[in-house]
């Protein structure tokens, strides 16, 4: 795992340092110590512990028995897990494809010179992520309700069809994606906007003088210089998407007919509803391998040939 996982780090071309002798070999480690003092017990140990649980049968309140790969073979053969993984992949793709460009457009719009109320807009876009999911669920219930919901009232008003937002298995995943995008798009936009702030405005001015149009400036200045932050947003949003749980749990419980059952929901059910910690942990480890593999592919793809 370590070898594979090593890749996403080369997100940005490494800075060539010629004068390694300028600092002591111990310096970097000293900077790392405070973080790892915390991370080793609370991050590394707990993750390793979780992976280890995947190899045991943990009888709650009883013995812990090593069972080898038994949990893994069970989970891999479980058709429900396959469905959950497939749903997760589909929703992940739909989500990323909608979310990232939208967040980028908002960030660029926010960065437009001579814009008034810039901060107000940011605050407004940031609001959804700050709202308690309990309340969000309540609001979206009212929004998505088939008979009395606001959305269908609007659709009926413009002469459209009534849509079964959460009841139709082919629509429900999209309703969940829409909710999720609504919750986080402003937040990622604010992060991207902060990234745009580090791009010196002189670059744009110089480009404008050279006659570069908006698209050219976006392609040749914004995109490359924002790439480190964009990569962060893509990786963070992707991992969150892979671990999609709260929204479908709250709105659909994975239904109807398992159409919104996600991998983490499967893990949750195994561990916390069925008290089967081993199978839950095994499923989590399998999901982690999938996440790491796809993230590496993503990063490779995004880096393209621009590196150098």
């Amino acid at each position, binding site marked *: 795992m370590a070898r594979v996982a090593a890749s996403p780090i080369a997100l940005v071309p490494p800075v060539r340092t010629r004068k390694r002798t300028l600092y002591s070999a111990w310096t970097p480690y000293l900077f790392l110590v405070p973080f790892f003092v915390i991370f080793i017990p609370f991050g590394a140990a707990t993750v390793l512990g979780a992976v280890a649980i995947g190899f045991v*049968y*943990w*009888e*709650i*309140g*009883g013995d812990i028995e090593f069972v080898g790969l038994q949990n893994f073979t*069970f989970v891999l053969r479980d058709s*429900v897990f396959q469905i959950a993984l497939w749903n997760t992949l589909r929703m992940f793709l739909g989500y990323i494809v909608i979310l990232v460009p939208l967040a980028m457009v908002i960030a660029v719009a926010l960065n437009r010179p001579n814009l008034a109320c810039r901060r107000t807009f940011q605050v407004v876009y940031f609001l959804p992520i700050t709202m*308690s*999911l*309990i309340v969000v*669920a*309540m609001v979206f*219930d*009212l929004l998505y*309700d*088939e*008979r*009395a*919901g606001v959305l269908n009232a609007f659709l009926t008003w413009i002469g459209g069809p009534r849509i079964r937002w*959460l*009841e139709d*298995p082919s629509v429900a995943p999209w309703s969940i994606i829409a909710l999720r995008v609504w919750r986080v798009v402003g937040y990622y936009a604010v992060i991207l906007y902060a990234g745009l702030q580090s791009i010196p405005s002189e670059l744009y001015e110089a480009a404008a003088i050279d006659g570069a149009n908006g698209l050219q400036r976006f392609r040749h200045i914004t995109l490359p210089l924002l790439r480190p932050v964009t990569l962060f947003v893509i990786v963070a949003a992707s991992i969150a998407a892979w671990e999609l*749980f*709260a929204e479908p*749990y*709250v709105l*659909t*419980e*994975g*239904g*109807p*007919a*398992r159409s919104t059952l996600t991998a983490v929901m499967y893990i949750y*059910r195994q*561990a*916390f*509803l*069925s*008290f089967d*910690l081993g199978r839950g942990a095994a499923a989590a480890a399998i999901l982690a391998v999938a996440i790491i593999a796809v993230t590496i592919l993503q990063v490779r793809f995004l880096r393209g040939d621009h590196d150098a």
Partner: protein
Amino acid sequence: MDQISRRSFLVASAALGGAALAGCNPAGPTTGGASAPAPAPTKAPADITGELTIWNGSSQMTNAIKQTFQAAYPNLKVNLVDFGGNDLQEKLLVALATQTDLPDITWVIARRAAIYLRTNQFLEMDDLLKPYESRFDSPSAIVRHRGRIYSYVQGPGNVALWVNAEQLRQNGIDIATFTTWDATIEAAKKLARDSGGQKTFLIQPLRAIGFNTFNTFFHSRSGNWWTEDGQPYKDGRNLQTLQEVFQFWIDLKRAGIAYENDWVPPTFWQAAREGKNLGYQMNFAVGANNTVQNLPEQSGQWRMVTWPKWGPNAPNQTGAFGGVFYAVLKNAKNLDAARAFMTFWLEKGMEEQIKVWGISNYKPATELPIYQEGRPFFGGQKVQLDMSRVPYPPFNYWDWDKMESEIGPIVEQAAAGQVTAAQAVDLSVKALEKIASERR
């Protein structure tokens, strides 16, 4: 990550009622003790000391414990931890798995009893509770695992049909005709026809709540998914019943005469206020409390119809959502206090228990004044007494988490017309076998 779940709706709605029983003014001495069996020997209240930690899932019961149990045991320090039923589950799993910081007593959702009791972490209480056994009106009220008694169910969550009789009458429907489901469905169809599909008095919820609602129908027909010892119940008549219930569910959906949503969301009450929703099938606590709280302006118009029969000659019985119970941990530090707690709700605390849950399985409860009171909201109907006359058959909850996630989708598929009733039965049997085979 911050999250909630619909399960908390279900859990609590299935089990408990609203805050106070509006219209109830319980008076008189606390009863129950007089007619109860010889209580198992416990210490005198003043001798019960120390601390008792209870993990609780209902704020109403928390208040009841503070006000009555704590008051009755002044020398005991009751340490109540109330997280809401849903969070309790996650907390309890961590505590059970790590064997640390466990409480003396915890609240358990009865549907999930097997998964907890299987852990072997709970104290069997045969000696304490056996004397009370015969005084419960249903075998399902006793929490049993592998032949041992662990507790008794509070607020069994048995269902009835709650209707606005007055508005139904104005729509030309007499609730006296609701004796069988056939007649009831006919009336619902007529109501839908006459109102252009606007009005209904039945609900057909979705998801886990939908599955549990479906299950109340199955339960009310003496159906069972599992045998007592947790094997798939493949008896031919039982499966025939299951197929009929699937067919009933499919027909109900196809007819489009039921309000379809989660349980009873705000929109449900809105529609009720607008005269579109004229009733719903619901457990006692929610039916008797929430209707009153949400529709005060319809006071006097509502009635409780006990569960319609499945045929003219079928028995008069209902189904249930299961209720909750309190279980004592094996390693409880204060066993005396824990035992006192377990019998308290059958002795001095019965009235308080009824205030929270609305109704009890414990037969001496019917002698309480609450049972004899007509409720103005229901036109003077003695809803508790009427409800207590309708039994519900024994029901075996096994692997209910898996049932909701495995059989739930089958019920959804059937409702969506993707499988027939017969296919749904086949799929269900396969799912039951899968669940049984995955146990370890």
